[in-house]
Structures are given as C-alpha cells and as structure tokens.
C-alpha cells in the first residue's frame, strides 16, 4: 500500500475518533464544579428519566432521550463488553466488598418454608423416621425435611452413595460447591463409614468438639458439614446393600401410618445346578401399614406391585449385576403423599 495511504489512514481514524470520545481527559473534559453535590439530581429528576436503563424494555416511541453525547451505542456496547470480559479475571482475583461486609461471605439461600410446606403434606408421612437419625447435634426440622426431600430425589440416580449425599446437600447450599466437594471428600471418606465403627465413635466425638452448640449458631461451613453428616445417615437408611456374603438385609422406616418393613434377599445360582434361572436375582418383600405400591426399575425390566389394604407385597428382579444400584419406589395409598425412594445396591 503506498505511502500516501498512511496519511489517509491517520486522517480517517482521527475523524472517526473525533466525536466518539465526548470528553477525553486531555480535552474538553467535563468539569463539574466542586460544589456540585452528590445528590443534586434527586430532586431534579423527572421520573421519566428515572430508571430507564439501556436494557429496559420499551417502545421506540416511548424511548427516553438518548444521551446524545456522541456515544455511539454500537461502539459503547462493544467497548464495554470487551472490557468487561477482560476485567472479570482481575476482579475474580480480588473480589470487591459491599459496604456492610468485612469479608467475602456466602449468603444463605434460605431454606424455603414453601418447600417445607409443600413437602409437609407430600412427604410428611415419612418424617417420623427423621427423629431416629443418629446426629451429632439436633438439627432444625426444616433442614432435615429438606434433606430427606433431596436425598429421596438423589436415590433415583445410579450414582454412589457419597455422590448422592453431596448432591442432596448442594441443593441446600447452591453456592458452595467447592466447600461441599472438599468437606464431602473428608466427611464421607470410608474411614468415617459406620461399618468401621471402632473409629467412628471417636471421629464423631472429635467432630462434635469442633462444632458449635447448635445448628443455627454454626457458620455456613459448619452447617454444610452437619448437613452432609445428616444426609449420610438418611442415604444409608434408604440404601440396602446386598452382596454374595451379605445376602439378606432388613430395614424399617417409621411413617405416620406405622412402620414400613423392607426385606431384600439376594440369590445367586450357577448353571451347573441346572436351576431355572442362572445368575443373580434379588427379591424384595414389603410389609405396608396401609395400602400402597412398590415400583422397581432396572435397565432390563421393571416390576410393580400394589395392594389396597395393609399387608405384604413381594417382587423379584432378575439379571442383577454386581456393582449396580437399583432404585426402588415405595408409595403409600395416602393420595397426597409422595413416594419415598430407596435403593438396592448389589456389591462385590
């Protein structure tokens, strides 16, 4: 490109710039005088101009006067988007504080009393069992109720128990995924599992000594820890672990209608015996305090059984695989009630 075009380029750019920058620091800079109060506009404002930001939905006919300061919306918007992207990295490394804060903290996404109220008629039926949980300290009912809700949801997923607990608690603390992962890793480690109860009592005591007197007085981190431990209790109550060694598991769940009894048996036969069915099957028997149903789904099949009055139900599922988790839904006849989800885990 020949030399004279350099000049053209500079000229063009200068012209284009000229009005794009309404008030450059080094030129025709706007100088509000020192005695302009911070608040001069409050009374001066015509409300027509109040609170119409750029993104306010509006009809062109009703559009407020534009700033007409030579800011071209296209340029302005692009410039701001560009800067915004760039600055976010720096801001993240150095988060600003709001006037009432002394440190960055998380704000509780309160447990909605709505969720509780909605769930009360729905799952209230299943709540009595919550009173039997072994907890480090008493926890507010609303927290437990929400945890039960979230754990029951998580039981439908084919993920390991620890993941279910973390998932359940994360719905209560939507902002704290990192803390959750960290605490979950520590608290839900096998060394703390009830099966190794020799050390569990000691660990529980150690934990208890670190915690405040009650849940409400706890920090968010402590509340997460307590919620995780409670979630672990709930998920353990809802999970029946079977294995070739542990072929029978029984469980009871207190409801407002009485006790639901569950018994799961694992049978493993080989072809050599010439049995009708070679492989692993699991049979589940239920004793219901009132009419209800049982629904059990696996990738290969699903079985459902129901009855109108109190009594027993039985289903059997074939083709079970070691390492698989099978959700099991139990519903009582009470029309307003939600089902509760259990899971049968076939372990090594």
């Amino acid at each position: 490109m020949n030399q004279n075009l350099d000049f053209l380029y500079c000229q063009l750019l200068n012209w284009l710039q000229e009005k794009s920058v309404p008030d450059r620091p080094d030129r025709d800079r706007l100088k509000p005088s020192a005695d302009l109060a911070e608040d001069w506009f409050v009374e001066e404002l015509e409300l027509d101009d109040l609170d119409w930001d750029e993104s306010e939905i509006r009809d062109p006919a009703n559009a407020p006067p534009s700033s007409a300061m030579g800011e071209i919306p296209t340029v302005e918007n692009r410039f701001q988007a560009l800067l915004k992207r760039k600055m976010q990295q720096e801001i993240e490394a150095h988060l600003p504080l709001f006037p009432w804060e002394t440190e960055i903290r998380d704000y509780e996404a309160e447990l909605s009393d709505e969720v509780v109220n909605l769930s009360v008629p729905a799952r209230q039926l299943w709540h009595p069992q919550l009173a039997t949980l072994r907890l480090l300290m008493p926890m507010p009912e609303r927290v437990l109720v929400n945890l039960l809700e979230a754990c029951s949801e998580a039981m439908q997923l084919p993920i390991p128990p620890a993941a279910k607990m973390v998932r359940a608690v994360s719905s209560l603390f939507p902002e704290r995924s990192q803390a959750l992962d960290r605490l979950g890793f520590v608290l839900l480690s096998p060394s703390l599992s009830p099966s190794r109860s020799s050390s569990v009592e000691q660990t529980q005591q150690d934990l208890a000594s670190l915690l405040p007197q009650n849940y409400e007085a706890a920090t968010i981190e402590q509340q997460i820890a307590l919620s995780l431990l409670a979630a672990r209790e709930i998920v353990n109550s809802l999970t029946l672990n079977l294995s070739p060694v542990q072929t029978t598991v029984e469980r009871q769940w207190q409801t407002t209608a009485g006790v639901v009894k569950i018994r799961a048996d694992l049978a493993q036969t080989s072809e050599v015996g010439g049995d009708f069915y070679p492989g692993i099957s699991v049979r589940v028997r239920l004793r219901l305090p009132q009419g209800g149903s049982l629904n059990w789904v696996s990738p290969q099949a699903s079985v459902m059984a129901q009855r109108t009055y109190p009594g027993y139900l039985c289903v059997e599922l074939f083709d079970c695989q070691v390492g698989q988790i099978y959700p099991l839904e139990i519903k009582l006849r009470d029309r307003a009630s939600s089902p509760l989800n259990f899971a049968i885990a076939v372990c090594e």
Partner: protein
Amino acid sequence: MEAIFQLLFERLKQLTRASSEKCREVAARITDEVTRICQQSRRIQASGDIQSWAKKLALHRLEQCRRYYQLGSKRGRIELQSTLSAIVYRYISGGQNRASYQARLVLIEDFLQGFYAEALNAFRRENQLSENYSPRTLLELAEYMAFSERYAKRRIPLGPKRSQQLIVLRAQTFSQQQPRESVVDMDLAAEGGAPESTNNWNDSAVQQLREVMVEQQSAFLEGTLRETIIEELIAYLEERQQPECINYFILRLQDLTASEIEEILGLTARERDYLQQRFKYHLIRFALSHRWELVHQWLEADLERNLGLTPGEWEQFKNQLNPEQTKLLELKQKKVPNSEIAQTLSMTANQVDKQWFKLLSLAWGIRNP
C-alpha cells in the same frame, strides 16, 4: 397493582429458595418502585396502558434480581463490578496524567467502593428501610445488586434532550480528585436539608454543568453520518471475519493508549503492531472501495466536489490518468452502474473496483502530498 405484587411474589417463590416472608418483602419493594415510576412518568401515563407497562417494568426487575440470585454472592459481584467498571473506565483517570490500565483499575475499585455505599443509601431511602438495613440473605443480596446496577444506569437529565448515566457523572466528579468527604448526606439532601460541608451546591452549579455539556453537542448531524460509517465499518470487518480488528478499532475509538490496548487485548507490542497493520489495510479498503461513496460524502470529497480536490489539483489528477481511467471517471461521474461500466470497458466487475480504488488512492495522494 395487587396483581403485580401477586405475580412477583409467586414467581419469586418459584425461582428462589427464599422464605415466603423474604419473597413477600422483595415483591412489595419492586411493586412500590414500579408503581412510583408508573404514576410519575408522563410517558407511561400518556400511553393509556399503565397496567401493561407496570407488568413489563416489574418483570424486568424480577429478571435482573433472578439473574443475580442465580449467579450467587461471588459470581454476582464479579458481574456487577465488571459491568460498572466497564461503564466508567473511560471517565476515570488519574487526574491530569493518563493512567495505565492497571492504575485505572485501582482507581475504579476505589470509586466503586464509594458508589456501592451511595447505592445502599439510595436503596434504604427509596424503600423506606432503616438506616442500618443491609442484605442478609441471598435474595436480598441479589435485590441490592440488581438495584445498584439500575441505580448506576439511571439517566440524569442535563437539559433539553440530553441526559447522562448517573454513574458516569459520579465517575467524572471522582476523577476531579474530589475528596470523598464532600459527599453529601443523601438523606439530608433528599429532605431538602443543607449538607454539612461547606459546599453550597445550588442551581447555578447545575446550570453551569448543563451548559458545559450542551456545548459539546455540536455537529450533531455530522455525528449521525459518522455513526453510520462506524457501524458499516464494523459490519464490513465482521463480514470478513476480523473480530480482532473490530476490537482494536473499538479501543482506538475510545482514545486509549497503545499500552492500554495491548493490556486489554492481551497482546505484545509487536502483535498489536501487526493487528494495527491488518486493521489499516481493511480500513483503507473500506474507505476507497467498499463504501467509498459514503466515506467521501462524509469527508465532503464526493465526485460532485471533485473528490475534495481544488481546481488545480483536479486538473493535475486528470492529467495523470490513462484513457481507460479517464473513461472510468466519466462513467462514475454520470453514476453509471458498475455492471454497465464493466461492459463498456470490457472488464470484470472486480477489475472495475480495483481500477477505481487506484483512482481514489491517486486523488488522495494529490490531496495530501
């Protein structure tokens, strides 16, 4: 307005995990704000459809609140801080010295600290909350962040048909290195009381400011043509898939220093230089080929004005043309469409463009030797 309140209340309950009580409080505050705007806005009153305006405004506020709620405390404040920082960036400078990008960031951070306090006061005052109210729950925090963003973007009228965003005015004041002590007690001022500082602000100061700003509004019409060209140039660069060139252009328009541009785009000096060359190439193509008529019209150098050349220069220009180029110039002056010119001169459309580009470059060279 009861319906608006109910709508907001229900939505907040659906969208958040906040307690009914909090949802109720926030819904009531948004409803009050919207009611106030609808009552006092002449535009809305004149529209004859106050209800649908109220609903629009309410849902818009709800959406802002929801967005911050979902982002949460940490990401929400990053979003708010970066939004406001980007708005005030150009207006915050270290006094007389042009500050570097990093230095500006520090200043902006200082400035925004003060601004958040002001926004909190305004929030308390406008919602008749106690002087020590502060957000405690995530929903309240989201509400405050959404309010701060709206408050920052409020347009302050500065005379007929002119206004500016509140935060920009604040940033300009801040840049004048005002000691922050001169901040007026908002509540006092709102009640018409005099601030305790020695600053007696009054109408004449406001008047003065307005005059300054009105003066800047010259050449408005020329501005619209310039705007068109800027938008067309951006579209042209987009068509050619040159996003870096667009970014470079946008930053150049903001009158930033080379080092700031490098910092913002994350380039070395050398890379920026390459980018500048690439942008230059495209800008010249655009000006002498793609939209030459528009650009020349804007520069008052269109064909009617002999491409902006003096009579002497025009003669000199014509003498340098070969017969084919002379013919091309004649046809262009007669506004003959390109396709016809191509036929007449037995060229492709592309060749016509190239020839014309050469011609315009030549004229430009004569204009600016």
